[in-house]
């Protein structure tokens, strides 16, 4: 594929992600932070996000599975997930976290379980999409092109 084409695909795909709320302005910031001295910054941060989120989701599942649900602990996990998702711009994940925390405050196990389900879904979605986007980026680079900036989308 030609670089132009790849770049256009990339841009179009990204635009969609922003439009659908999977990503927000924070993600564009990440891209801006990438530079020659940190050429894989976005990839690095996104990978960290994947690792961290999976761990948190796992912990959340276990915590909510307990006889006596420790809401403080759950709140702490959700808070962290909220923080990391907002740091990379995973907007939909973040939004679910907000709702999740409200249920925690209310000590509503049902509500929490629903939110957990939802946040897992959103996480998987954004993960898939980010991975697809990364692949496009790699293709562009492989074809000798530069990755277009996404700041116009935020």
């Amino acid at each position, binding site marked *: 594929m030609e670089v132009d084409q790849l770049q256009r695909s990339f841009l179009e795909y990204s635009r969609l992600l922003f439009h659908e709320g999977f990503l927000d302005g*924070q993600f564009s*910031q*990440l*891209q*801006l*932070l*990438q*530079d*020659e*001295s*940190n*050429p894989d*910054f*976005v990839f*690095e*941060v996104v990978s*960290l*996000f994947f690792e*961290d989120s999976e761990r948190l989701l796992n912990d959340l599942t276990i915590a909510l599975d307990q006889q006596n649900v420790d809401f403080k602990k759950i709140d*702490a996990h959700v*808070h*962290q997930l*909220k*923080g*990391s998702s*907002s*740091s*990379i*711009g995973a907007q939909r994940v973040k939004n679910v976290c907000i709702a999740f925390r409200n249920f925690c405050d209310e000590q509503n196990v049902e509500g929490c379980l629903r939110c957990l389900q939802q946040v897992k879904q959103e996480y998987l979605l954004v993960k898939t999409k980010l991975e697809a986007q990364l692949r496009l980026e790699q293709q562009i*680079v492989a074809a000798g092109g*530069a*990755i*277009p*900036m996404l700041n116009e989308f935020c």
Partner: protein
Amino acid sequence: MACTSGGKSDVAPVPEQFPVGLRVLVVDDDVICLRVLEQMLRKCMYKVTSCSQATVALNLLRERKGCFDIVLSDVHMPDMDGFKLLELVGLEMDLPVIMMSADGRTNLVMRGIRHGACDYLIKPIRDEELKNIWQHVVRKKWNEIKEHDHSGSMEDHDRQKRVIDDAEYASCVNEGADEVLKMQKKRRDSKDEDDTELENDDPAATKKPRVVWSVELHQQFVSAVNQLGIDKAVPKRILELMNVPGLTRENVASHLQKFRLYLKRLSGVAQQQGCLPSTYCGPVEQNLKLASLGRFDIQALAASGQLPPQTLAALHAELLSRPPGKLVLPALDQRTLLHASLQGSKCIPADQDVAYGQPLIKCSSNIAKQTSQPVMSNEDVLSEFAAWSAKSLGDMVPACNFGSVVERNSNMLISFIQQQQQQQQKQPVIPEPSRSINVQPSCLVVPSQSSPNFQAGNSPVSVNQNCSFRNLALDYNNPSLQSNNSSGAGQNMEVECKPVRMHSEFGTAGSVLSASSCSKDIQDSACQRVPSSLSTISVVMQVPNINDMQSSHSGKPDLVQVSTRNPVYVGKGPSIPSRFAVDEHELPMSSISQMKLYAENNGNKVKQEPNDLTENVRVGIPVRQTFPQMI
């Protein structure tokens, strides 16, 4: 590769403007946030250190005192509450702290403010927000300067600020050293012209009703507190006892608060410095048996946290209240404590120097021949030194000998203090410490030795205030210092052990003294590894404070260097001194100038001359010089 405009090569050449190079410590248990923040801060041209654990961050701050300008911390962390970290940092290091959280609820923000955060950022944090964090550093420094402005004219004050600004700007650049030097020169010149007395305390005479807690004033304060009893000392009564015209109850109240905090912190900090005591436990124990070394023991013990705060406080009170012949030990500790408290965690008053200095003088005749160590230890401010010196002394000098010397010196110290209190003026003796020492082990010597210390101690306020500035200055100065430091001692910023931390914390002239004194005997390459630059800077900073009364002294390059080296010394114990001594003459003048600059900038009190800086150093050097002569 991204089309970003990033790329280091694209970045414009290092701007000469502050806040480039601002040293930021970021603490966040969320690795993603941490990474993102780190990158954002780097983009702002700041020097970033990131930490995912609060406890590690705290240790880092303690070990590298003066290495950071500002701290960014998350609120929710597993190992320590962010607010707790905030409090500790404010108390111990007096650095501006910015809290961060994804949780922006008002009550949390309010808590942050109550705990002393200078700002509260809600995640996700935008890079624009980070670009501005330098304002907190500057604001804090300026406020400190304003608050403890020397009793000079507004002009002086402005000049100080200008110098600080100049220094900040200049130091940002790698070639800053020269500029700093120039600026310092300019500053010094203009200062000389309308030099006002480093007035210890005469608020009434100043244009602004500001109180400068000079050595004498502080002594009066401490003796008043002592009279009333630390637990019963209330500002009103203290004020009455002090009977200083122009001093208000509020002045006393805030000073008392700081003093209490200091005592509290000292005992608390001492307990945390686990590694510190371990090295010195042995010597300390040995010394315990020696009555004469009691002073050192106490200090060492204090450092090792074995002494309860009450003891420390009592000791401190003792110092100023006891008549000669009574406990010398307590006095020393107290003074140290007192001054240290005044100066914040950043420096230990030169008091220790004084205390040590006296015995040193006395000892010199007895011990000088043997080694310089004993002498040095005497002058050392920190308990570490004390321990070290105690050890050295134990090794080299018969206990009884030393003991008697110490006692004599202690008594002299006490008399001296009392003398000082009555004099209310710059100590005449200060001028020629070396001379005094050479002449005889009389009280004269002691006072000269001690006066700087007192002074150091007395400028707690200024010291405190300057601390943050100091840190900032340090930071910016580091590159220059390092580049100027031919011996390379200053290059190593690594803090090897807690002692270093302490030293930087208490890096007063005392360390200078110790450094100088230890020079001969300890040849330990380890010294080289001590973060001299760091400690140097802190020492440098401190020096000015102590110098209030020493402005008349012309600093000697050696002295300056000595002070520079102190940090090294501090961290490494015995080995440092030797290194210190060796390098003493190798320090480039620029370092000295820089130090002077800092001294000046530092000064609420150090407006006058670079002498101030050297004053402190002087304390150490005279002794040092004396020894060779005596030996």
